[in-house]
């Protein structure tokens, strides 16, 4: 554990938002400079568009995009890595997911077009949920919605459950290669909660969504749909037939752990614990079942700030997460003890600090293996 903290100290540049250079960039999005309500995203200028740009430009950008140098996005990613302030998280997530364009002049237009497009899908396809072709998909979604975060009152509201049904159904029929797979329902919740938080001052988990203006409700729904779609685009082979993405990731986790912590790896072997028995869910639900929702949201700040955060960096986070429980794991004396521990890790008290340390360790692992893929190879 000591090396963990040492590393955190020695690599402050990766996440220290108090760095002097960072002050200017963070200034426009500092909570104190924000209007008290963010009823329109275009009021918030989070991107340092005035920064001098380098000469490279993103390919495939139209003339209007030239106002937004690639460095702006890089800066935003850099600052988001260590956690995004609550007040600017909604717009930052929209930007980082690639849903909202960096160019401010285009934002309103794009938002309107995408939101209209989503409700166009609803109008065109949602009634087909009772058709023979889609009724199995809808049935599965319908069974799972009341079972999504069942302990959080927000998700038991009929209005919210209907939103989730629409989002998941439309996504499923537009992605027939995977269709709806249990676990995808969980992936909507961080987006929904974050976009809802724009309109809720206090306790989001108990907020009555039906009390919001209908337009607002619809915007939250459409934005959640599109951001979830962007996320899933990057990890779709987790959910296609035989779930190859997950199987590969579980194998990769095993390989990684065998290199970084032989004790744990051998301990699992000795007691015949297979990685699939606990890590399948870690991959399928992106650790959402292992962490409180607030921690997942913080985790996703970083996942979205990372290139390939959900598809690649997650593996290192899983490895770091496993090693986090090293002491507990090595104190178990039989298979059942190990499985019970690994499937019910005690994270209930976890908050930003724990997630921050977890991410720091994951970053260290990734850095180590990205620079030297054969490092520690057995």
């Amino acid at each position, binding site marked *: 554990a000591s090396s963990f903290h040492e590393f955190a100290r020695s690599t402050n540049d990766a996440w220290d938002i108090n760095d002097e250079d960072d002050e200017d960039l963070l200034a426009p999005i500092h909570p104190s400079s924000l209007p008290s309500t963010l009823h329109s995203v275009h009021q918030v200028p989070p991107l340092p568009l005035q920064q001098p740009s380098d000469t490279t430009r993103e390919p495939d950008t139209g003339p209007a995009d030239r106002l937004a140098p690639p460095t702006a996005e890089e800066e935003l990613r850099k600052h988001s890595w260590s956690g995004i302030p609550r007040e600017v998280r909604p717009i930052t997530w929209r930007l980082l997911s690639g849903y909202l364009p960096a160019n401010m002049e285009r934002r309103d237009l794009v938002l309107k077009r995408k939101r209209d497009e989503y409700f166009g899908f609803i109008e065109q396809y949602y009634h087909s949920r009772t058709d023979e072709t889609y009724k199995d998909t809808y049935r599965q979604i319908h069974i799972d919605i009341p079972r999504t975060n069942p302990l959080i009152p927000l998700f038991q509201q009929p209005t919210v459950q209907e939103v989730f049904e629409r989002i998941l159904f439309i996504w499923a029929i537009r992605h027939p290669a995977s269709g709806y797979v249990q676990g995808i329902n969980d992936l909507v919740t961080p987006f929904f909660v974050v976009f809802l938080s724009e309109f809720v001052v206090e306790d989001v988990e108990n907020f009555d969504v039906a009390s919001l203006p209908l337009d607002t409700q619809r915007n939250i729904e459409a934005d959640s749909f599109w951001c979830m779609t962007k996320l899933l685009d990057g990890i779709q082979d987790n959910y296609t037939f035989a779930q190859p993405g997950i199987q590969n990731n579980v194998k990769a986790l095993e390989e990684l752990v065998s290199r970084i912590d032989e004790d744990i790896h051998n301990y699992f072997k000795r007691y015949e614990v297979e990685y699939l028995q606990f890590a*399948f869910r870690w991959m399928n639900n992106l650790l959402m079942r292992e962490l409180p929702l607030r921690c997942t949201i913080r985790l996703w700040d970083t996942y979205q700030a990372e290139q390939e955060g959900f598809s690649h960096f997650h593996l290192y986070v899983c490895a770091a997460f496993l090693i986090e429980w090293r002491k507990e794991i090595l104190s178990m004396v039989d298979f059942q003890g190990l499985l019970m521990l690994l499937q019910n890790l005690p994270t209930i008290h976890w908050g930003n600090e724990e997630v921050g340390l977890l991410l720091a360790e994951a970053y260290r692992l990734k850095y180590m293996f990205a620079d030297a893929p054969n490092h520690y190879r057995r």
Partner: protein
Amino acid sequence: MAKQYDVLFRLLLLGDSGVGKTCLLCRFTDNEFHPSHISTIGVDFKMKTLEIDGIKVRIQIWDTAGQERYQTITKQYYRRAQGIFLVYDITSERSFQHIMKWASDVDEYAPDNIQRILIGNKSDEEEKRQVATGQGNKLAKDYGMDFFETSASTNYNITESFTRLAEQVLAANKKDLDLLRASVTDELNLAALEEEEGITDGAAASQKGCWC
């Protein structure tokens, strides 16, 4: 260290999504019931120790996700099970129809001497019933299985059905059982044997008693 159990085996819960597999298990192992239990992803694990005919039986119960997409994963667990619960929901004709599919998967992927039992869950929801008790009985008979209607909600027939499957697994492994009985009558002998073999912890002991 006192030995916590004499034998260990694995049971598997199979059946469509939402029939109440996890709720059956929670009722059995923890005597708890949550009507909106979070959906199972992949395979979950629980265990409980029963005493049958003076033998301490530790059962590992693997609770599977019902959705079809997970079957590549869940089928990997079939071959190491000794007993299987085939679960449907009496308020869902569809889940009952699918029992045939689950049973044929078991035939294909599970060991030959696997013990099976048919469960019609949610028996408390009589007003929503779509599958008559007689239909369950008939299907069970056709497949040569025992049959229980259960309710995790009201705790009806839960212990009974788990115990029955455990007894069947014990009986099916009678040869091993007789060997075990002989050793149970002479605990000292068993302990001495374990020491001799350098077995000092539960996992190693479990290998000894595990038929897999």
